[in-house]
Every structure is written in structure tokens, then in C-alpha cells.
């Protein structure tokens, strides 16, 4: 089975500080992967590197065998930690923007998701609450039929009701032939949807396991394992 994402000895440094240090990672298709780590552990940096927003200092990175660049951008759907919209936009404009630039954008799925998320097309993006804005960003990211989805803290800063709604949407709307990587430090709320987890600490991967193996091998939930790994 060929891998969707292949990272070989990726290092990202800013002067003497390492954001990622010699990270190697391989993700196959059809997986929901949790990228877990405390704040500043390198989760966002890793995701931004896969999407081409950041360049690695060393190492190689491919998506479906393609180096990160113009072609890989068409295959990767990213929900970053800041909005993918502009302040002048209405929800409708944001949808049109994505539809115009991404060939794989599914407008039917987008409309369905908007309804599911209780978002109105006529709402102004600038007046949406944080929770509603995150729902919109998720709608935009998941409405594409991408090969790899990257969701950076999709439930960070939203209330428990919204969290449940967002997680349900992820499971229901992501393309099952693809893989999805979700970064978070709110492990308990989200661990139920993971197939695999990657623990990252101070820019280094400390564990990459299937969730089932963690339960069988260590007799622990992902949340318990997370607390153990990140205990100070």
C-alpha cells in the first residue's frame, strides 16, 4: 500500500531553535490520524510544511509521491489555525471562492454541510462567532474531495456542543479514500474517531501507534497515554 504522506528526516529550525527535529512519518490512505502534542510541540509547523506554507530546513516531503508544490496543493485540504476567508466575504462568497479555485470542491456537499452546521449563506464572515467561524472553515476544508485533509485544532476554543457537532461532521463528511490528520491537545474529546495517533514533543515524534494497539499493548486509552507521555 503506497503512502499518502511521506516525511523523511524533516528538520525545521529558526536559528538555533528547532521547531521540528529529524521527523520521519508515513501515513497511508483511509486513516484518521491524531497528531497530538502540547502547545508549541510542532504540530502546526508539521502541518504547514505538508501544505507548503513553510519550507523544511532539511529533509524530503512528498504527498502521493509528489514533492510539496503546485501539484500537491491540489491534493491537500488544510484547515489552519486562522480563517481561510476574508473579512469582506459572506459565507456564500467563501464557498464561491473555494469552488472557483479548487477543481475538487463539491458544492452539493458544501451546501449539505452548511445546513448541518446551521450556517446561512447570507451571513457575513466577519460577524460569525468563533465556533461558527470554525464550522465554516471546516465546511470549506471538508467540502473538497482531497487526498489528504489536515485539520489544525478544529475543536480548539469551541464549546462542548460545538465540539460534538464538528467531530460528527468530520466523520460524516470526510472522503474515506483519503486520510485525515487532526492536530489537537484536547485528546479526550476527540480520541473516539482516531485510527492512529502520533505523539509529538519538542519537535520530535515520540510515538506513532494505532489506537487499537495502545489499548491492547498498554491497556490505556489515548488520553491516559497522552498524560503519561506529556507528564512534567
Amino acid at each position, binding site marked *: 500500500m503506497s503512502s499518502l504522506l511521506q516525511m523523511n528526516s524533516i528538520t525545521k529550525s529558526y536559528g538555533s531553535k528547532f521547531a521540528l527535529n529529524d521527523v520521519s512519518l508515513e501515513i497511508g490512505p483511509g486513516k484518521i490520524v491524531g497528531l497530538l502534542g502540547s502547545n508549541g510541540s510542532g504540530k502546526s509547523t508539521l502541518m504547514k510544511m505538508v501544505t507548503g*506554507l513553510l*519550507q523544511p530546513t532539511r529533509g524530503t516531503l512528498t504527498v502521493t509521491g509528489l514533492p510539496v508544490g*503546485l501539484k500537491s*496543493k491540489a491534493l491537500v485540504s488544510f484547515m489552519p489555525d*486562522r480563517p481561510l*476567508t476574508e473579512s*469582506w466575504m459572506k459565507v456564500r462568497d467563501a464557498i464561491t471562492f473555494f469552488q472557483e*479555485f479548487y477543481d475538487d470542491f463539491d458544492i452539493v456537499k458544501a451546501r449539505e454541510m452548511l445546513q448541518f452546521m446551521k450556517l446561512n449563506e447570507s451571513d457575513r464572515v466577519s460577524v460569525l462567532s468563533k465556533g461558527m467561524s470554525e464550522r465554516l472553515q471546516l465546511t470549506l476544508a471538508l467540502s473538497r474531495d482531497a487526498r489528504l485533509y489536515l485539520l489544525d485544532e478544529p475543536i480548539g476554543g469551541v464549546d462542548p456542543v460545538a465540539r460534538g457537532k464538528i467531530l460528527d461532521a468530520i466523520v460524516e463528511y470526510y472522503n474515506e479514500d483519503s486520510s485525515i490528520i487532526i492536530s489537537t491537545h484536547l485528546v479526550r474529546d476527540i480520541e473516539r474517531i482516531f485510527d492512529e495517533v502520533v505523539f509529538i514533543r519538542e519537535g520530535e515524534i515520540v510515538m506513532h501507534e494505532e489506537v487499537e494497539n495502545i489499548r491492547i499493548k498498554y491497556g490505556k486509552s489515548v488520553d491516559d497515554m497522552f498524560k503519561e507521555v506529556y507528564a512534567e
Partner: protein
Amino acid sequence: MMKLLKYDFKRNSAKLLGVAVVLILAQLSIMLLMNDITLIIVITLLTYMIAGVILFITPIRTYSYNLKAYHRKLLPVHSLKTIISPIAMGFICLLILGLIMLIHGYVYLTVYDNTQILYIIKTYPMDTIISLLSACWIIINMFITIFLAITIATSIRSKGSFWIGIVVFFIIVNGLSWLDNLLFGGAEWGFFRIFADESNSSVNGVLTNMNSLQTSISGGMIGSFIFELVCSVAFLYVMVKLIDRKVEA
């Protein structure tokens, strides 16, 4: 590219519309409230100049924003289009402003019966056309040079990168000017030679004798233009490479 251009226009639509409205109101006020012709000319030119500066700065800010904006960086579009789009936006805006100025100028010249300038234009049609084309090229060339400085500054992740960009801009402008002088003797293209031609004579500002001159295109001017064109293409290439490999959001 047209899609990017559309969204660049949409983002700046409020500002562009604002400039247009203020310009119209200012011109109407000048027309209705002022009597002194010298003052009318000065204030009119000043309002056009202010509008021009705003329209010149807008694409620069747009490009700078686009370089860092996630939703633009993530798009599967060639980096060259990211550069061309704000240049096209700025050029179109300034072109429209220029056309409005020309129409306004023509109306003014007709109303006030100032035939001197019209006479110059009619006598030197080629120079007029070359001057207008020259102005268009200067705008595009200036945008490319400024964008290069911004791209270089953005690709440097350190304190003071803004100042590095400014220094780079002045080095490029002065370096090119020096090279241009060295290679082509400072040939400028598209200026009305009438202003420099001492054989013309005038009384009270009205031309009484004007010597027939051939068009001002010379080998040096064409060489200078080709030199600038080659430099601009090279700058675009450098920018594309920097955006793809060095500029981080």
C-alpha cells in the same frame, strides 16, 4: 489569473470606490466654488496626484498581504499569477484614472481655449503616443521593482527585514539607472523634445516658431527599453523562485 484579479478587486472595492467618490466630489467642488484659473489647475492636479498615489499604493499593499495570506498561499495557482494579478489591478486603476485625466484635460483645454498644448500634441503625435506608452511601462516596471524588494524582504525571517527591503529597492533602482546610463547613455524615451528644443521660440508662452522634429525614437531608447524589459523578466523569475522556496506564511 483573472480569478485572482477578481478577488483582489473585490477586497479593495470599498477603497477604490471611496477614491472615485472623493475625486468626483473634489472636482465638482473645484469647478463650482473656485474662480482663479491657476488655483483650479493646481488643486485639480493635486487631487489627481493624491488619487494616483492611493491607487499606486493599493496593489503594493495587496501583494504584500497576498504573500502572507494562508488562503492565497494554499491555492494551486502558479506564483507568477500571484505577482501579475496586483500589477494588473494597479495598472487598470491607474489607466482609468489617466483616461479620466485626459478627458478632463481635453475638456479644460477646449473650454479655456488653450490651444498651445493641443498644438504641441498635434504637432508631435508620435511623441504623445510614446510618452503615454512610456508612462505605462514606468508604472509596470516600478511595480515589479517594488514587488521584488517586498518579496526579498518577506523571504528574510529576521528583524529589520522591512529595512532590508527598502535598501534593496534603492540599490536596484540606482544600480539599474547606472547600468542604463553606462550602456545607453541615459536615453529616455517618450519625452516631448519640444520642451528641450532651443530652436523653438515663443512669446508670452505661446509658440511662435516651432521646428519640425522627427520622432524621438532612437537606437539608445529601444536598447534602454529592452534592457528594462529583460531586467523585469529576470526580476519576475527571481520572485517566483523566492515565493516557491523562501517566502513563508
